[in-house]
């Protein structure tokens, strides 16, 4: 029997996602953002989600749409004030969604730590700022650092450029961003991928996310381009 992580449709790949789950969502702005998987979650109607992402969605597409549907109770991110953000600001200003702000590099490292079995690490980022409040401090070589804890998730929603049936992934340019480390940090990583290749077609030197970090794949050949979708006034559903 051969390993094959490719699922036949959105219903199958999302079958394990549950109400109240913590979900990491890849992407920096729209680059690498798994819009179709997020729309699948809207169709499924999964509720009370905690989202870990760099941003909080643009327009009413992808993460912006999911938040607009009130399926998200909390967002953990570095920058929730995007120029094109509409749904998050509206709910936030009404006090109807929680926000935890994490510096971008600390967010990345906390995610990488979770995937690497590191429960906590020290960083100089944020020392002396409001974001250090309540965090343990420690001096190394005369300099002050704060303790940051691993950030893990039940699921990662990821967008990739190519994959094989083992879940080996490559990305396109800066669409790589948070996707590889989120695959590491989630119990179950769900990946939407533009092109599925034979295992022998991906050079083992060029694999960015090894298949060990990926549980399920779905082929989305022509994903929505967020910028265009927003310009065209698209809303989902």
């Amino acid at each position, binding site marked *: 029997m051969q390993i094959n992580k490719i699922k036949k449709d959105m219903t199958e790949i999302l079958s394990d996602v549950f109400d109240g789950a913590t979900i990491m969502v890849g992407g920096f702005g729209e680059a690498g953002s798994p819009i179709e998987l997020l729309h699948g979650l809207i169709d499924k109607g999964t509720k009370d989600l905690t989202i870990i992402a760099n941003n909080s969605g643009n327009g009413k597409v992808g993460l912006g749409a999911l938040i607009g549907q009130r399926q998200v109770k909390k967002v953990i991110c*570095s920058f929730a004030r995007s120029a094109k953000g509409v749904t998050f600001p509206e709910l936030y200003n009404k006090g109807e969604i929680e926000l935890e702000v994490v510096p971008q590099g600390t967010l990345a*490292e906390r995610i*990488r730590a979770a995937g690497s079995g590191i429960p906590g690490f020290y*960083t100089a980022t*944020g020392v002396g*700022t409001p974001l250090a409040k309540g965090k343990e401090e420690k001096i190394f070589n005369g300099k002050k650092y704060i303790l940051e804890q691993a950030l893990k998730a039940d699921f990662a929603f990821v967008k990739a450029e190519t994959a094989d049936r083992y879940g080996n992934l490559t*990305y396109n340019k*800066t669409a*790589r961003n948070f996707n590889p480390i989120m695959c590491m940090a989630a119990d179950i990583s769900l990946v939407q991928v533009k092109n599925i290749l034979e295992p022998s077609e991906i050079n083992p030197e060029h694999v960015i996310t090894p298949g060990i970090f990926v549980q399920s794949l779905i082929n989305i050949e022509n994903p929505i381009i967020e910028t265009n979708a927003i310009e065209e006034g698209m809303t989902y559903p």
Partner: protein
Amino acid sequence: MTNINTKDLIKGWDRNTIASKIANDLPHSSYVNLGIGMPELVSQYIKEDREIIYHSENGLLGMGPSPNENEIDLDLINAGKKPVSILPGGSFCHHADSFSMIRGGHIDYCILGAMEISVTGDLANWSTGKGIPAVGGAMDLVAGAKNVFVMTQHLTREGKPKLVQKCTLPLTGAGVVSRIYSDYAVLDITDDGFKVIQLNEDITIEYLQSVTDGNIYQ
């Protein structure tokens, strides 16, 4: 220190002049992260006698200029989420590796805007205390880069000093700024206060002190 009437203000260097001063101070072979907005101008003033490599924290080393309309790839963007290009010798990496470059002290210079800079090098540039709090990569950059340069107007739009004895806004980092490039002067943060490295030709040191809330010396 009372607010200055903005009509009475002496006009300082324009932003292109400030950008060219910073460009002159970046040594050959430096790895540089330019903050979103005004600092992006710096790359236009690098002279032929040096090569600078630009880092964008979303996983791009060797960033090039904005592409032509027909060469735009929305998967190739900078930290400000604008389309950019990549130069020969550039590379992509994931976010943890990109911030290893920052946090690990591999970025030689980071150029950022500021709301307030204290006499001890504290920087406030991420939050006015109002609206949705959003920090992005600013705290990582100021804590990690080898040299943190601030590019700023000397005064706020309301005519209040940005160079202050003590920041009133939420900090981005404490004791992190090494040099300030304003429209009025180039100043280093030192144990004795703001040390003037270069003074705008149209203003006096007394004038500079009058628009600065913190000790100035030459």
